[in-house]
């Protein structure tokens, strides 16, 4: 029978993140009980992979991280570009490419294989510095920019990890306020 205990070492977690685990090893990780220390290991591995020193509090995606910068939780790209306070949707500072025409959609799809641009558009968000594709949104035209993930870092650290958060930050969405101030 497949299965069995698997020791979750830093090396294993690194391979897990890099997608280097064999299916059998991955299966054992998936089917085992959750390792309470895994989050720490993941942060350690990620911290080693980025070229800067700001402490990662929480990973947001493959390329984006929330780090503690001057005691403010800040969204930072792996290349080092900073998007500012994590409570403001980072997409506001990203480069955006919108595929809302037959022509642009057909760069990706064959004719008749994509959505109707008058019904649905694809928004691609790129890092202004390294031009990594950070996120893609598929929404009807005119739909507000989606704020993908606004975690409550205080609660996560205190109630889930049982630790003090590295940066103190009140849990509110500051996006609207930012827009009001920035785009008067």
């Amino acid at each position: 029978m497949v299965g069995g205990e698997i020791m979750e070492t830093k090396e294993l977690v690194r391979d897990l993140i890099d997608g280097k685990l064999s299916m059998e090893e991955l299966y054992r990780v998936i089917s085992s009980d959750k390792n309470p220390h895994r989050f720490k290991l993941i942060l350690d591995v990620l911290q080693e992979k980025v070229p800067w020193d700001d402490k990662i509090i929480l990973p947001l995606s493959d390329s984006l991280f929330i780090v503690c910068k001057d005691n403010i939780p800040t969204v930072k790209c792996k290349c080092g570009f900073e998007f500012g306070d994590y409570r403001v949707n980072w997409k506001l500072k990203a480069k955006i490419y919108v595929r809302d025409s037959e022509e642009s959609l057909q760069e990706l799809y064959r004719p008749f294989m994509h959505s109707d641009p008058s019904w649905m558009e694809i928004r691609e968000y790129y890092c202004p510095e390294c031009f990594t594709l950070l996120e893609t949104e598929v929404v009807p035209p005119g739909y507000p920019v989606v704020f993908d993930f606004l975690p409550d870092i205080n609660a996560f650290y205190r109630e889930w990890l049982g630790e003090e958060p590295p940066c103190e930050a009140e849990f509110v969405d500051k996006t609207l306020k930012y827009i009001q101030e920035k785009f008067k």
Partner: protein
Amino acid sequence: MRYEILAIDTGGTMTDTFLVDGEGNFIIGKAQTTPDKEYSGILNSLTDALKSSRVEAEIGDVLEGLKAFVYTGTIMINRIVERKGLHPIGLITTAGFEDTIRFGRGKQSWVELPYSERLHAVSHYYPTPIIGRSYVRGVRERVLTSGFEMIPLYEKEAEEAVRYLIKKGVKAIAVCLLYSFANPEHEVQVEEIAKRVMKEEGVEIPIFLSHRINPVIGELGRLNTTVLQIYGAEPSREQFELIKRHLKELGMKAPIRILTSYGTTVSPSHEKLITTVTSGPTGGILGCKYLGDIYGFNYIVGTDVGGTSFDVGLISAGQYSLKTESTINRFLVNFPMISVDSIGAGTGSYIRLDPVTKRVRIGPDSASFRVGVSWVEGGVNTVTINDALVILGHLNPDYFLGGEVKLNRKRAEEMFIDQVSSPLRVDVEEAAEGCLELINLDMRMYLNAMIVGTGHAPENYHLVSYGGGGPLLTAGYTKGLNFQGILVPTWAAAFSAFGASTADYGVRHDLSTELLLTPDGSMDVIVTEMLNHGWGELKKLMEEELKAEGIDPESVFYKPSLRMMYFGMLDDLEVPVVRFPIREDHIEDIKQTYDDMFEKIYARGSKSPEAGYMISRIILSCSLPTPKPKLPDIPESEDTPDEKAYKKEREIFYGGKWHEAEIFEMDYLMPGNVVRGPSVVEAPSTTFVVPPGWKAKLDNHRIFWLEEDGRG
């Protein structure tokens, strides 16, 4: 006294030996499996067996006197699981079906996972294909299900495919074309073309045709069977040869025979050697059938408790059931196998608490041969059922495997407290017994569900308990099920090897077909002709094989059979046919046999002959009677055991309290002796627990009959 039959069961971890003489006196041995050189594990196991013999015997003399040597084991399945088979293999298939082997079946992504993981799609994954896509070539052709050639083979494409595969450096070529079981013409054509091309290119690569390996309906099953034959079975022949050579050098004259998954034995040169791949569990069921024949039981359930799994097989109406579809390391195959089902519950199963709910979970994974935390050298850090048994006093820590493996009770207790009983805030004994009761409950419910699922009740069955852990848990997992009788053979630990030794030499060939017997009998003439033709073809094939193995085809006994069902039903049953060729008026007898069988296995009310009958397979088996072990037959003496049999008393925990239990040495118990619980019967290879309120009588065949005191 001369030993006549030697049966070897090389498991993943232990090699079991069963050696029996002409009077049914047997000895058993155990040794670690040596995957690199199986023969040395086999010799060690044999040496271990001879050590326990009361008569001094040299290995050479024993081997020389043997009449039969039967092998069953994991050589082949390990090769497949570890992906160490023949590589690379090329595949030529019908154009448009090149991806069948990669797609497989959705089922292949979860089929061998434990139930809890089957429920979670995130845990599903597909087995790595044995043949990569670039080694697969499609050729245009099409044969219909009827065998009618709709599109002829594009010979040019076949030729190109062969050239391509030669260039790729393949070591073997598999040919599997659509519906080749109905009409093999195109596969044969491909073979001819391949041979011609190879001659031109000056190479020689073996070719395997799916209709020869497994002429059975179901593309994927036929394809996988063919590929696994090449990948796993072909390279294993060499290993069997090696075993044979080594034993021959030591003086063995008997031929080596390997147990098939459908209950016969074949020689290592058998064309469809893949049918021996998972024969381990088969042995146990054959052993049960053999006991059934001796005692006159027609309904038996065989239960095998190993370190890792609990295997259950049923014999109903005197027949074990064959399943026609199964999986090997997740690959769907469709050659016949004796149906044995299992759950991941054994004596080595890990005990863990759910970190959130603190619910006790047992298995499904196990420490297998590493016993548990009580065996320090095993390096296990999670407690197991074995540890619970040591804590409860059921297992003797100083007599595990005859004392060769010393168990540490204190360590077991400490870690059990730490991992289980203290988080649950109960006493360690209470926790250990609770865990034991849980695994027993799992087994009991599974057993009951299996039997009830066939429309019977445990009251109809005799239960045989075997495997190293069977006798330890028998009382627990049978309690309250009211079996006709519970049999615990004294050779439980090597029962599978024993079962293997009862198998005749024989082969079986299946041929898929679709023959309809209409209610008005208008098809009887044609069907008769088709059946006779089918059997004739199979017989020709068989005769060829027998000659190749050096057996006179005249000396074997042919047994024709059919698989059939009521027209419109989905599950077929195997119907024995007395002889062939048959005459038209025999069709009525065949229908009658099927009706009777259906009634016994299902229910009278669900018979539905109104729409006629469908014959789905033509089957021919042949067998060559081979020497079988006799059971010991010793007249029963008085019911009080001899003084020699008593060992030091020990406390065992049962039903919430400690009991002073009598401990017996199994070897010194004589037929007729009755052991009353609480007591424990110990042997080097197994431990038999008779709890308070139970008793066990040893009968003349050296089999214990376990029952609750005062019952019956």
